């Protein structure tokens, strides 16, 4: 079994799987059971100052289901903890004492002034917690009060608040970022400048999951009205991966530790976040969908993968980052063609419909429902591969250098060449 022990900005945990700040970490009862189930750490549900906030008393979730009611995406209008600060602090202290090997990070959100931060941080430190996470991400309710994503969308505020916090505590400080901005690197840089030890991302995405077509109101509907919520779950993973990668590969942000969050439901999702630079990962929706037990699969899957690859966790972290590049650097001399394995083909014709109607008319439908790629038309987009229901039935095969691409009539070169040197690029630099 691979060693999954994690040290993330000095916060140690037996594995990199933490529960994100959310209902699963809202109270002692949950967190104890999570630790029993094997979670490596938790980020406690966001604390605020008293008087504690209130939640709606109607439904607080919206959902996007697959056909078998698989939860593909979840949206919520829940606010931060709705329990008194003192109760939360007391519980945190108990849990830290009883589970010393697990990571205990406490999420915080107080008004955007220095005094409240100076007030709450010592209280948290007194619990023995190992770090704090600044919630600059919550996109609903709290933002209307000048907190959460209202701070997270203004890099100057992030930097300012982070600096206050760093000055007021010796605990590691993780800044949690909102995805509801145009360039994730700006808030990350602000956090770094403010002295943050790490960033965590993503928080939820502004969303309306569905509209009730009888009530003509967004769901969840509360007395005939609905408000936008925050979207999470498997649906947001691609957005989150990209944002993590953007930070991981930015030269200015180099070395800034990342805790990856957003749609992680399996060990594989977690491994992908780590390959893109995440040093720990946080999970919410998967736990809310399936319960705490899912961590067992995450632990076994990640260990098996690392063992199979002969890698350590450290080897995995950031391993894909050098391969994330910009479009302009992609090798235009890498020429592929789709190939359909006739033995695997079940003759559904989806590749044909996709290519014929929406791509390049590069698949021929022959008598007997035989589908074949026309190399002279195939642009190698791989749409057919994506829509084919049979795994490995359609593959993209590289044309060997020296062969002629029947589509362009050009001989495939063995020398990589990208857009920066392409003759059609008005800004092309001469190849060296």
């Amino acid at each position: 079994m691979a060693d999954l022990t994690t040290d993330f900005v000095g916060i140690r945990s037996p594995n990199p799987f933490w529960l994100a700040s959310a209902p699963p970490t809202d109270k002692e009862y949950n967190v104890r059971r999570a630790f029993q189930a094997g979670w490596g750490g938790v980020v406690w549900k966001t604390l605020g100052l008293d008087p504690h906030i209130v939640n709606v008393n109607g439904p607080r979730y919206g959902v996007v289901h697959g056909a078998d009611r698989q939860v593909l995406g979840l949206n919520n209008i829940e606010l931060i903890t709705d329990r008194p600060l003192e109760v939360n602090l007391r519980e945190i202290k108990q849990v830290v004492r009883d589970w010393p090997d697990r990571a205990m990070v406490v999420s915080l959100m107080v008004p955007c002034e220095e005094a409240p931060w100076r007030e709450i941080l010592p209280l948290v430190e007194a619990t023995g917690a190992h770090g704090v996470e600044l919630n600059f991400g919550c996109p609903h309710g709290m933002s209307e009060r000048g907190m959460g994503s209202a701070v997270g969308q203004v890099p100057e505020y992030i930097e300012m608040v982070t600096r206050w916090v760093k000055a007021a505590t010796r605990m590691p400080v993780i800044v949690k970022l909102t995805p509801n901005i145009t360039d994730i690197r700006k808030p990350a840089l602000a956090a770094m400048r403010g002295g943050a030890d790490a960033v965590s991302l993503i928080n939820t995405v502004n969303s309306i999951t569905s509209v009730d077509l009888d009530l003509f109101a967004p769901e969840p509907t509360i007395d005939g009205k609905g408000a936008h919520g925050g979207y999470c779950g498997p649906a947001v993973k691609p957005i989150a991966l990209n944002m993590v990668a953007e930070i991981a590969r930015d030269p200015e942000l180099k070395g800034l530790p990342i805790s990856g969050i957003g749609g992680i439901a399996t060990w594989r999702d977690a491994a992908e976040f780590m390959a893109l630079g995440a040093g720990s990962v946080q999970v919410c929706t998967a736990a809310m969908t399936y319960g705490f037990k899912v961590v067992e699969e995450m632990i076994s899957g990640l260990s098996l993968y690392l063992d199979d690859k002969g890698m350590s966790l450290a080897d995995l972290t950031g391993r894909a980052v050098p391969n994330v590049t910009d479009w302009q650097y992609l090798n235009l001399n890498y020429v592929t063609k789709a190939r359909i394995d006739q033995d695997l083909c079940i003759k559904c014709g989806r590749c044909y419909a996709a290519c014929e109607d929406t791509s390049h008319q590069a698949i021929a439908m022959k008598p007997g429902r035989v589908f074949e790629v026309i190399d002279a038309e195939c642009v190698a987009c791989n749409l057919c591969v994506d829509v084919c229901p049979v795994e490995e039935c359609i593959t993209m095969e590289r044309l060997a250098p020296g062969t002629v691409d029947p589509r362009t009539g050009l001989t495939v070169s063995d020398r990589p060449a990208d857009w920066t040197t392409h003759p059609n690029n008005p800004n092309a630099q001469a190849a060296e």
Partner: protein
Amino acid sequence: MSIWTKGIAAGRLDAPDYDRNFADLHPPLDPHEAMVAADRCYFCHDAPCVAACPTAIDVPLFIRQIATGTPAAAARTIFEQNILGGMCARVCPTETLCEEACVREAAEGRPVRIGALQRHATDRGMAGPHPFGRAAPTGKRIAVLGAGPAGLACAHRLAMKGHDVVIHEVRPKPGGLNEYGIAAYKTPDGFARAEVDWLLSIGGIEVATGNAPDLAALRAEFDAVFLGTGLGDVNGLDLDGIGAAGVEDAVAFIARLRQSAPKDIAVGRDVVVVGGGMTAVDAAVQAKLLGALNVTLAYRGPREAMKASRYEQDLAASRGVNILTDAAPVAVEGDPLTSVTFALPSGDRVTVPADQMLLAIGQTLATGDLPETAGGRIVVTETGRTSLPKTWAGGDCTNRGENLTVTAVAQGRDAAEDIHAMLTEGADG
């Protein structure tokens, strides 16, 4: 009275057993099951299931309409091609039609449940108002002979086109074999009758039951005539003693069963069914479900030659029917019947005790005043034209019939389209 009672007797089972035995063979999908089943459809290009359906229902489209929560739209898609889509969803041997062609059958031996989904959609569609209206009246009148699937489909399509239709049906009830032939557990709860009523609610169709008028008279009175008379006669076995009490034609036995409560149907303790098609299987299975102790289905050829699909054979076996192949009946003993003797390919003979014998060795065209026939069926073109002017035919009575409900529907519909084209274009009939 029990399963042990010798001879032919009713009431062999307790009431709950009858209810269980004759309940829906395939209970309907609930809405969630339907969603999950629909999600498996790949929405194939030029889908093979559509080609495999004799009525060419747009299967991927109706399944997608189910998946998007509009079963009524799905039902309309089905009914546009097949107005008896409700019955077909219950009785089609999908394992040899659409579901056999499903690419997921090829891929994993588990096709999309097209029949069950079709039932899901049509059950919902039929709960609402009739989905079609009638075109402006054309003033044309068409006679349809026979209220089976072919006749009903033809009449409905003609009514849609604005023609007036009179269906003459010799039996007391409309529906043809839907009402008198299909196995009871495929269409329980009076569905056949309800479906006919629903179909007729389009208006413009008069049904005259107990009526078998002369073809020549109809051709003189109406603008066109459609023959959907099915196969009125059955093949017999030419054996000594075949007239013994206890020997009966399987189609008549089934018709009686369909028109009564199962507890009132007398069945033998030891039943022999002769034949290898769908009728033989249905007779054997229903005899078993009525409480017969031993049911033997004897087919004279090898297993592969049986017309009943593998699925039907397995159904029979799972209900406890003993299937004997390569067994040709050669003698019938006793009156009332006591046993039946079969010859095996080896030349050996076996005698099977029997107090009831049901013959299911094929139906034939009733003779009478008919257009040209060949091989005992009315000869028709692709659109159902017969050798006589102004006269079309479809379904089992024709040389293009396939002894399938769905084929009869397709042919009735297509004949109606041709009749309509002919009558409205003023072309020569």
